[in-house]
């Protein structure tokens, strides 16, 4: 390996990096023009900060019960009222947000890493490896997801970790197809061929060269997935398979809307977690949409 050649590549990378930087500023500029996306980002930042800081912000212990003060309406002591065991709803909402957001983010990271790796391998190597991996994707796609989800969660104990694991294991197929597609088109581009001729290892080519160029659509899908997982957790909670008490999650707090008594006498109780889910997922969708437009060169501005 001659040094000069390496330098050539280095230069080229610097150039692409430079291009990327300017590209990044274009993307940011485009994104900032989308008012809904910016609004989403801003709101989400507030929500996430509040939830992360829950241990310091929350006015009460989220698990402290006062059985004599059940379903108290919102007031100066309990800002959003209390739940059916007399626990402070606002504190539970913040702590529950931690759980819901963790489920969303970690499951997304899991699904995206699995999907990206498999998609990259399939797209890069092609041939038999590709055929095998894509059949695997077919089987998983053909597997009736919600049924597997119900069975798995019912079988294993419905803890947060299991939920994240199941979500991640069932949701990577879309990403893998996306990444594979990008790889199929990108792997014959000049910069990849150049990297190959200087004997760069496959791993480095995949992760160092092609992947960064293929990440656009993946980032969009990932953003939308976080919201999707938060919704999915609430649906599982409705079926009694979500995060289990005493740990609060927005999903399991929302299930109390099923009680007619609570609906009639303490409607704020399920409404707040419901709104939190709605707003959070909405923000993720706004951001995802904004990113899609910003990252898509075809979208022309008017």
């Amino acid at each position, binding site marked *: 390996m001659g040094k000069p050649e390496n330098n050539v590549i280095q230069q080229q990378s610097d150039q692409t990096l430079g291009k990327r930087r300017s590209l990044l500023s274009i993307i940011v500029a485009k994104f900032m023009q989308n008012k809904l996306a910016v609004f989403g980002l801003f709101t989400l930042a507030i929500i996430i900060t509040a939830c992360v800081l829950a241990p310091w912000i929350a006015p009460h212990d989220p*698990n*402290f*019960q006062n*059985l*004599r003060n*059940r379903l108290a309406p919102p007031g100066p002591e309990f800002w959003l009222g209390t739940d*059916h*065991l007399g626990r402070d709803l606002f504190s539970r909402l913040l702590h529950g947000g931690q759980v819901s957001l963790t489920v969303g983010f970690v499951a997304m990271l899991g699904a995206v890493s699995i999907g990206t790796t498999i998609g990259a391998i399939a797209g890069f190597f092609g041939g038999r490896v590709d055929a095998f991996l894509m059949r695997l994707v077919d089987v998983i796609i053909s597997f009736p997801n919600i049924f597997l989800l119900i069975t798995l969660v*019912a*079988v294993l*104990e*419905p803890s947060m970790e299991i939920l994240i694991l199941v979500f991640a294991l069932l949701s990577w197929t879309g990403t893998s197809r996306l990444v594979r597609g990008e790889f199929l088109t990108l792997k014959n581009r000049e910069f990849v061929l150049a990297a190959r001729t200087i004997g760069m290892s496959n791993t480095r080519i995949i992760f160092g060269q092609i992947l960064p160029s293929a990440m656009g659509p993946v980032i969009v899908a990932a953003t939308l997935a976080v919201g999707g997982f938060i919704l999915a957790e609430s649906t599982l909670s409705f079926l*009694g*398979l979500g995060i*289990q*008490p*005493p740990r609060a999650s927005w999903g399991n707090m929302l299930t109390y809307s*099923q*009680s*007619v*008594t609570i*609906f*009639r*006498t303490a*409607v704020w109780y399920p409404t707040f977690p419901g709104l939190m889910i709605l707003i959070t997922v909405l923000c993720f969708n706004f951001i995802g949409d904004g990113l899609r437009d910003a990252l898509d060169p075809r979208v022309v501005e008017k």
Partner: protein
Amino acid sequence: MKATKSIFILVNLIFMLFMFLTACGTTPEDTDTAERGADEEVDEPTGDPQYGGTIVLGTSGEPVIFNALYHQDSASADVTDLIFAGLTYTDESLEVQPHIAKDNAEISDDGLEWTFELQEGVLFHDGEELTAHDVVFTYNIFLHEDYTGPRAGSFTSLESVEAVDDYTVKFTLREPDARFHTLTGYSILPEHILGDVPIGDLEDYNEFNIENPIGAGPFKFENWDPGQSLSLVAHEDYFEGRPYLDGVTFRFASDSNALVLLLETGDIDHMIAPTSELVAIETYEHVNLSSTLALRYDYIGWNLQNPLFEDVRVRQALTHAIDRQEITETVLEGQAEVAHAPVSPLSWAYNEDVARFDYDPDRALELLSEAGWEPGEDGILEKDGEKFSFTILSNDGNTTRRDIGIIVQQYLGQIGIEVKPEQMEWGAFLDKINPPNYDFDAIVLAWGLALDPDPSAIWHSKEIENGLNNISYRNDRIDEISDINTTIIDQDERAELLGEAWAILAEEQPYTFLYYPNQFVALNRDVQGFTHHPRVDMYKVNEWWLNR
């Protein structure tokens, strides 16, 4: 353009209307409830029973099979109770009373021969008469080696059953068995229809069991629309007289929330009301609530295989540390009595005079200290370097018991015991706690008590290995009482012996007995003649009538 704009406005309007109505619907309307409160003072309209009308019963469980010899679920039992009739029934004070039989069993002095005289003229729905031969046919199924149902174990003491004549039937027992009283109430099946079906095939004989069950009960099977409804019509020739109602329809809904809404809209006339929805149901003008103590108790079971719970003082301390009075007054809306022993106050075998461990955290700490548990640096009790920390398990389907696990965490936390509440899905839960796993520290669960108070199935040490004594409780005197109590036919004598067992169990606290809950039935005001039975949902429905 105009069209789209107006559609857009319309959509917006609907959305606003929706928000508005949600807001209205959820604001507590004080004036309205006040009026309702006044309404409840007005006496129910009463008068002479009248014939006619169909009542709609709401239920969340769908029946499986209309044959009491094979069903295991309460939804099926509710339907078969209406279609079939037995020799006897258990009344609302849990006494066995004659039904098809003219009188209670005539029992020979050695307690081995039980003879029943049957009423004449009892007709099946197809017009055939029910005779002693049908009774013999039915009970012989339990004894048959090909019988596939779940009830053979109940009849181990029965040696034979024979028809002395058309209206006299004689049961011969191997040994005296006081429990046999409650076994004489089984639905009598028609021999003229099922006589030729091999016993081994009877469980799958859907032409009878599902499509066309024929009994001698007050209502005839008419139609079953799976997932939606099941209808029964009055049996004109019912031997106690035609029921007042023309028919009974079961309406299936997915959960109690859906049922409460159906009750509110008047789509159903009757439902078993969950305690958590009483507040809502009480506001319905057209609905009456009936309550009675249920034949059951809820408890926390301590796994005695776990060294933590070995010491009786520790178990007593745990009970002292939990304010059961507060739990019943709050979570159970005051609709429960604190329990002290594994027997219902409704039972003739109830013993009031047992040890009580009321809420007293100081006493709890004293007992724990006697047992060697002292607070460690972090405030958690320690003994020999080990922390007092355990998991309390409940099933996720039952919100009350789930909440109790969470509440107990706080109570015990206050005296320095670390508790982790956990929930599991019912099937997985049972698998974990039952033999051969016994994989739990403590469980929150309930027993629906059998009509007979025999303690063997739950407390006998022989039930540890494979039965329901999954907390592994062992006491020689309890084993002894379990073995002999069923051979004592005299009820008072038996009650005294069982009273001793309850006192031992209350003192030893293998369970923390939580409470006896009330059970509620929500009924449309038009329904009259209802009798609330602590165990049987469909009780004397032939006496119900509609004031419409």
